[in-house]
Each structure stands twice: as structure tokens, then as C-alpha cells.
């Protein structure tokens, strides 16, 4: 059932302060809308949970990319195109830039925002494994102030997050210390553009003395939340990559993920592909493979 615009309110304050004041007045009543690539789809289908929307599109406080010596701070309102076109982001955060290029088509990349992807909280979102691999922090803001939260803790269940009803995601902070790590990312889906992943991976690693010194492995579409494979990372650490490690990594990864059967894929396929992706990452890492 199509929505009637006469039934909906939309306001567009011109400052972040005005937006968070509005959210604080009636916590949970107002739905922020940035580029609309998720919200307008729900609206068209008559499935929005609220009839009061507040536009945060193009607010200057949310659309900036700032580098300090240790980290980059990306405003939550930055679009995928903003990320893809930023030279330093491209050089230092290839996992994020690759995922941004797989999200939707160009028109969606021009409007979809990183903050929106995080708050929409789809376990199939392409850019979220990259944020887990890079150990992102989120800056959340409300009239009560700012707080900084490790992104790893943000998703608490399917489409459930730690965002309070009066809060907005203001920025995403990524440490710069992974810039010389080997990085590996791959989307397995029906087609790159406009298709939601069956499984996707973002992973970082470093070899030293013939063994895996460190690994960061995150997967999408294999659990109710974007998932970092902490146990798999742990068992590969300090070991040389060979047939026995690959078998152990596959087994550990299979035990960590919780895939489901849905319209896009099956538990069996997702489990097999997740294991293959983890193994491919480790093999390429051990070969000192070319960076993506």
C-alpha cells in the first residue's frame, strides 16, 4: 500500500543542534532521514514505523572527512561517493572503498550515507564488515552530549543497536594503524551492483617470520549482525598458513557464524562460501599477495 505524503511530516532543520533538540523533545518519535535510500523504500511500501521525519541530508556537521595523525573521522552523513572519491581514504582504507563501490548503483552511492548504513543495521550491508575489520569507533551525539563507542559493540541483535532514541550517529572513527596491512575483500552475490550480498567479507592481516602475526576477519550476511570472527582470528594467530590451518580456520569460522535460509541464499551455501572466503584470505595473506 503506497503511502500518502499528506499523512507524513518532514522537517529540515539547518543545524545538527536543532536536529538533536527535536529528537530530545520526543525521543523515538522522529525518524532521521539522510539520503533516503532505505527510508524512502520503506515509505513507498507503507512500512515506516513513524509519520514524523527529520531530514539530516547534507548537514555540514555530518559531512566532513578529517584526518589526524592516528585516525580518520568520517562524518556520518558522508556518502559512498564521498568515500570513493577521497584520495587518502582510498589509499588507507581499501576495504571500505571497495565496499562503497559495491553498494547499490551510482545514484544510490551519491545519496546513501555511511551513518545510514550503520543505523539501518542490515546484517547484509556491504560496508559494515570493513568497519569491523578496521576496529571503528562511533561517535554518538544527543543533547546529553557525545559518547564514543566501539563499533564492535553497537549491534545487539537483528536490527537492534545501542543507539538511544534521542541519539544520532555523528561520526565514524577509523584508526590509521592498519594502512600497511594486507587487505582482502569480496562480495558474493548475484551481481555486484544493486544486488544484496549472499556473503561478503572484509579482512586485514599481517605476516611475520612465516606465521600470521595478526588477522582481522569480518563477514556480512552470516548472522543477525555484521560479524567479526574473533575466534577464527585467535586460532590463526602465530601459525604458518598450510592445509591444516586452513582446515581449522574453516571449522572455527563455521562454528562462529549463524547463517539462515532466506530469499537470497541458504545456510549450506553461506557456510561453504564463508569457509572458502576465510581460506582464500589466509592463502593470499601468506603469499604476501597484492593489496586489493
Amino acid at each position: 500500500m503506497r503511502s500518502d505524503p499528506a499523512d507524513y511530516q518532514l522537517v529540515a532543520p539547518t543545524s545538527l543542534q536543532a536536529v538533536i533538540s527535536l529528537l530530545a523533545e520526543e525521543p523515538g518519535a522522529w525518524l532521521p532521514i539522510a539520503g533516503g535510500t532505505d527510508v524512502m523504500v520503506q515509505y513507498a511500501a507503507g512500512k515506516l514505523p513513524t509519520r514524523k521525519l527529520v531530514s539530516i541530508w547534507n548537514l555540514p556537521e555530518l559531512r566532513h572527512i578529517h584526518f589526524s595523525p592516528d585516525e580518520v573521522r568520517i562524518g556520518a552523513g558522508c556518502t559512498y561517493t564521498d568515500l570513493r572519491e577521497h584520495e587518502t581514504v582510498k589509499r588507507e582504507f581499501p576495504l571500505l572503498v571497495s565496499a562503497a563501490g559495491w553498494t547499490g548503483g551510482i545514484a544510490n552511492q551519491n545519496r546513501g550515507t555511511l551513518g545510514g548504513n550503520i543505523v539501518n543495521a542490515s546484517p547484509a550491508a556491504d560496508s559494515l564488515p570493513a568497519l569491523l575489520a578496521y576496529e571503528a569507533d562511533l561517535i554518538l551525539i544527543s543533547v546529553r552530549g557525545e559518547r564514543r563507542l566501539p563499533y564492535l559493540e553497537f549491534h545487539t541483535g537483528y536490527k537492534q543497536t545501542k543507539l538511544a532514541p534521542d541519539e544520532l550517529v555523528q561520526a565514524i572513527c577509523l584508526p590509521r594503524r592498519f594502512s600497511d596491512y594486507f587487505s582482502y575483500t569480496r562480495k558474493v552475490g548475484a551481481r555486484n551492483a544493486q544486488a544484496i550480498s549472499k556473503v561478503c567479507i572484509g579482512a586485514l592481516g599481517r605476516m611475520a617470520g612465516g606465521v600470521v602475526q595478526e588477522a582481522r576477519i569480518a563477514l556480512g550476511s552470516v548472522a543477525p549482525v555484521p560479524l567479526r570472527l574473533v575466534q577464527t582470528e585467535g586460532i590463526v594467530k602465530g601459525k604458518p598458513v598450510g592445509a591444516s590451518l586452513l582446515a581449522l580456520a574453516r571449522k572455527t569460522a563455521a562454528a562462529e557464524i549463524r547463517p539462515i535460509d532466506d530469499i537470497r541464499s541458504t545456510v549450506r551455501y553461506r557456510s561453504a562460501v564463508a569457509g572458502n572466503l576465510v581460506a582464500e584470505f589466509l592463502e593470499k595473506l601468506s603469499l604476501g599477495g597484492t593489496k586489493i
Partner: protein
Amino acid sequence: MTASVENRVPSELSLTVNGERKTVRVYPMERLLDTLRHHLGLTGAKEGCGEGECGSCSVLMNGTLVNSCLIPVLQARDADIVTIEGLAAGTQLDALQEAFLDFGGAQCGICTPGMILAAAHLLNKRPEPTMEDIREGLSGNLCRCTGYIQIFEAVAEAARRRATT
């Protein structure tokens, strides 16, 4: 809250469409696509899927390719919109439109306005695109007639013609 009540009634909003300043009386959550088609009579942008998958409603907003079905018109306030109707200069077709005609890039025509605007956006960013650039630039626009090859060739030819004129 008084501000909320005001936003439930249609209000006047101005935007520039194909170079002309227009003022419309609309609900703020009306989709830009509906404003263009129903208030301004510009039916070049089509509604295909209505959820940002097919690209048939593509327009340029402040020079950027967008799906007009996903834009609440309030977010287009004071924006500069270009639709397919604004691409030709009078009766002089744009190089892309000429190339689509010459290469059979349009069959049923539903996807064509969006394809041409996506291509215009691509050529503005990359005047000399590779075939891979063209495929990626049009990857958000679906066509069920041509099989895409004629469209890709038309865009490549338009880029060549633009470079030599």
C-alpha cells in the same frame, strides 16, 4: 508542536528545473519524481520499481545522479534539477541522445531517460571513459530490451564525439 502542524499542509517550495525557477505547492514528503511528473508535467523520468533499483527515475540534482523516487521534495528545495527534457538545446539533441538514436540504444524507451542522464553524469566525471567505467556508471539502470551492448556502444561513441567537437 506548531512546526509539525505546518508541515502537514502543502506548502510552497521553489527549485530550478532545466534552468527555470519553479514554485510548487507540495507536501514535503512527496517524492521528487511525483513533483516532476504531476506538478511540472515533466514525464520523462519514469517510475519503474519505486525503490531505487532500476534507475528509470534518474535525474541530476545539483549535478549529481539521483533516483528521484527516493527523494522527498523538501530535500530538493532550491536545488538545480536536470531531467531528460532539459538535455537538448532547443531542437539540437545532446551528443548522447544522437548516439542512442544512431546505435539503437533505445527500444521501448522506458529506461532511456535514466540511461542517458546516468551516462551524462558519467561523462561529466570521466570524459574519456573505458568500457568498464561505462558498465559501472550505468550499473544502476536496468534495461529489459537491448541487452545493454547498444547502450554501452552509444555512450562510448558520444564520448568520442564530444572529444572531437
